[in-house]
């Protein structure tokens, strides 16, 4: 048959057949070469895998360094990756089914939403909640979560808003299955009495099971308050986990002015031994220490108390990368900050690799926003609105006159003389700054929650506020109805309150003549040079967190406006 068909094939096709065979052979050769080259390059893949945190999963017998050692050769110094696709990787990709997962977070510093105002940034309680959902519902893994403390913003912890936010955070964490909160600097700065008040309310709340935990903190001079608990024994996945926490010596100074009647902090080295003994009596499968202390001090504590399987420090860098270390048999790592990460420890009792570690960055690609957190956010904003609209309420209690002693008059008053500058401002995003709190981000259309009464937002979205402290000046913006003349981010946020300047210029206009010394001084006072704007003014709001793409030279033309001098020279 073959012979017949070959013989009868036209010459053209026979030539084509030869070509086809040649192509097949070529492909075969190329494929073979590619196949062989794969094996010759295989070791580089293995090295890359070795560099990943998954394969660095701690072995109890093998201590690993704190961070990657300073390399002396390229082979040790580089990770063989061609793209930064780690965020796109599934979480805990290579983990087998663990007995349970311990999730530890810390130092949220008030960032209940992604670090800063940009959704591109990592973090946020809504994404964190989705991580727990993925672990519990998609993977069906038992997950136990604890928080080291430091939930609030240090700079703003004394504001009443922090108490409201603290309550929101507690609800959110409890809902996610957190079962303990260590006491950090910011919690203690709320003051022990407020802390106790919050505890008392939560203690009788049905379904709330996230007590404060601290081995060395006594509130209000009494150990019979019921809070904080020295340690907790928690059942998870049929295992027993003992968790405790310390407030370390390195941060004590920040709460040192609170009287001993209210707050007593014992040396962790003294407070821990009896707590460890009590924990051990419970025969736990794992012992965990949350150390609210510097990373160095926490490391020393981990060395001093090797009974702990896991020690997490609330110190260290805000973006700790992927590092962890073994201190003897103890897995040690830092929590990270601003709620950007969740540290996961998988437990595999009795196995060669008894623990695995992964620090998960809460990016927008892998994690959705949990509607349950959105509901809490709505309630939080509703509560803020209610209190904000109540004159004399505590959320409005902290207010100061502007340091210049002058008052805010509003952009319209400026426009009387600086029409061209006003026109530029009116067409800028600054003019819509307050409205944007109501309208929200385009990508959150339909889900956005109005922030018009949130002082932490208003401070950069309205006029007459101390932006860094999130405190309104005495005559700063309150709401659209009360202070409509201060809507948006107006002239006076950069130039200072204009009452004196306006008054003197009006007097000069009425009287005529040469400007007085006072007029000249007031003009100088409201003048902002470009250099000063770059160094001191814009960055108050356009900081790393809230305006990550901010580039002064690129943004400046959008708001640069004619000055009296430039208008004169143009004429």
């Amino acid at each position, binding site marked *: 048959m*073959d012979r017949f068909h*070959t013989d009868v094939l036209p010459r053209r096709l026979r030539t084509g057949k030869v070509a086809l*065979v040649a192509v097949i052979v070529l*492909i*075969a050769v*190329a*494929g*073979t070469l*590619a*196949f062989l080259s794969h094996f010759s390059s295989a070791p*580089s893949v293995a090295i890359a895998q070795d560099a990943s945190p998954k394969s660095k999963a701690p072995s109890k017998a093998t201590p690993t360094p704190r*961070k*990657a050692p*300073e390399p002396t*050769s*390229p082979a040790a*110094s*580089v990770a*063989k*990756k*061609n*793209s930064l696709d780690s965020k796109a990787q599934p979480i805990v990709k290579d983990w087998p089914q663990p007995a349970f997962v311990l999730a530890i977070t810390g130092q949220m510093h008030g960032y209940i939403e992604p670090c800063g105002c940009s959704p591109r940034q990592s973090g946020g309680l809504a994404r964190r909640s989705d991580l727990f959902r993925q672990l519990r519902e998609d993977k069906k893994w038992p997950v136990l979560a604890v928080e080291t403390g430091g939930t609030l913003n*240090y700079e703003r912890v004394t504001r*009443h808003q922090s108490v409201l936010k603290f309550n929101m955070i507690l609800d959110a964490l409890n809902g996610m299955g957190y079962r303990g909160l260590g006491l950090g600097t910011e919690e203690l*700065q709320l*003051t022990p*009495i407020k802390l106790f008040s919050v505890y*008392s*309310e939560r203690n009788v709340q049905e379904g709330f099971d996230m007590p404060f935990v601290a081995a060395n903190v006594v509130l*209000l*001079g*009494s150990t*019979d308050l019921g809070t904080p608990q020295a340690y907790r024994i928690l059942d998870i996945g049929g295992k027993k986990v003992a968790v405790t926490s310390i407030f370390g010596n*390195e*941060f*004590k*100074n*920040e*709460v*040192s*002015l*609170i009287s001993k*009647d*209210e707050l007593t902090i014992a040396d962790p080295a003294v407070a821990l031994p009896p707590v460890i003994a009590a924990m051990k009596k419970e025969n736990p499968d794992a012992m965990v220490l949350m150390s609210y202390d*510097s990373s*160095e001090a926490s490391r020393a504590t981990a060395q001093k108390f090797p009974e702990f399987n896991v020690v997490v420090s609330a*110190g*260290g*860098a*805000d*973006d700790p*990368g992927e590092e962890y270390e073994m201190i003897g048999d103890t897995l040690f790592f830092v929590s990270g900050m601003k709620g950007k990460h969740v540290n996961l420890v998988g437990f595999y009792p009795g196995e060669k690799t008894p623990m695995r570690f992964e620090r998960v960055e809460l990016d927008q690609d892998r994690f959705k926003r949990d509607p349950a957190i959105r509901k809490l956010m709505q309630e939080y904003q509703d509560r803020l609105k209610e209190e904000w609209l109540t004159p*004399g309420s*505590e959320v409005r*209690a902290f207010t*100061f006159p502007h340091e210049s002693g002058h008052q805010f008059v509003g952009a319209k008053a400026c426009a009387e003389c600086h029409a061209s500058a006003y026109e530029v401002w009116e067409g800028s995003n600054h003019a819509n700054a307050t409205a944007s709190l109501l309208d929200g981000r385009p990508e959150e259309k339909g889900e956005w929650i109005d922030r018009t009464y949130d002082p932490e937002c208003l401070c950069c979205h309205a006029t007459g506020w101390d932006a860094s*402290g999130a405190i309104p000046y005495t005559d700063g913006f309150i709401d659209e109805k009360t202070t409509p003349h201060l809507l948006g981010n107006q002239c006076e946020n950069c130039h200072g309150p204009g009452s004196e300047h306006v008054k003197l210029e009006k007097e000069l206009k009425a009287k005529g003549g040469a400007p007085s010394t006072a007029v000249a001084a007031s003009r100088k006072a409201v003048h902002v040079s470009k250099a000063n704007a770059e160094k001191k003014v814009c*960055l108050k709001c356009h900081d*790393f967190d809230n305006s*990550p793409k901010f580039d002064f030279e690129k943004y400046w033309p959008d708001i640069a406006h004619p000055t009296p001098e430039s208008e004169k020279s143009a004429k």
Partner: protein
Amino acid sequence: MNMKSMLGAFLALVLAVGGTAFLVARAAKAKPVSTTSAAPVPVNGVYRENPFPTVVEGPKSKVSVPEVNFKFGAMPLGEDRSHEFVFKNEGDGPLKLAKGPLMCKCTMPDVPDQEVKPGESLSIKLTWKPEETAEEFYKNAVIWTNDPENPQITLSVEGKVFEDPGASPRVYILGEIPWDKDFETSGHFATVSYKDMEIESCESSDPEHISATWSPEDASNFPQVEGALQSPIKSFAVNVKIAPNGQVGPFSGWLKLKLKNCIATEHKIDVFGNRAGPIAIHGPDYQASMSLIDLKRFKSAEGKKTRLFMFLAPFGEELKITEVVSKSNLLSATLAKKSQDGAEKERYELTIEAKPGAVVGTVFSVNAPDDLMIKTNHPKVPEILFKAKYIVQ
């Protein structure tokens, strides 16, 4: 076709199918690692992926970076620090480098747009300008290379950032202080750089009630903790006095230390506290600044309860309510001691209840509140007047 040629053709076919399948599989597998035909486009000069095509044949670059991490140590806030990382080409082809993502826009390497010839080196400067103090920072930046063995190099810097001059504590949080007498406390203010620094004066947000004095102290008195300046050369003890203003409740203010012989001309210290009366009252539904209890909305048939917590110094007997007067006749109050005998501060739980059965639609607001007067056996606090807001549904 003879047997030999048939076998040859079959072998070729097997290799062709196998090879093709492998090529397709490898292409699919390789998709995420930038072997796609579209060249990566930089955004603001930053490449998310390695922009260099894989060099398969011919001379190749070989990058050598002896040091990829640099420790700046402790640095004062306001300063920036830079370090130059050296990239040496030890290969036989030209080395190309491109800027990858930076951590939080905090480090800014300037990657020269030039090839590094074999045997030559190039420095890339990493600059870190901190915007806030940090007990510890760690920042990194990615540099892409055309070295097929080492396509990505991650440079990093780390250190600590402290404020100089700086205060310890940074914020004066005083907790509860007496409402009827002066309260004094002290902190520290020091520098590691300005040996002639002086505090000239102190401005206060409320000069009548918040003031400060200062005096030089041994610099070793400044607390040596992480995150604060280390080994100061000059330190002052700063004594703060809070005078009574006739009111109880939270207060806030600031002090500005005016400086000379120092790069900073002033240093602001925030002060917070709570002037507590003989009885301090707290609770989640209670706003001390207005003595306001917020019972919110509740159903008439159910009524509403809230708990307040009272703290007081022992005065020789147990605190008792002697009479309760409710303007609306809807509110009642009960008191229970919660602390053990002998405690430095006694603790009581005060339960305020809006009784069931109130007329639906009853509204008490902040501007028109319900009043609740509680009379006690405390010699200094015979009466406590609360206001309450609520809506009965």
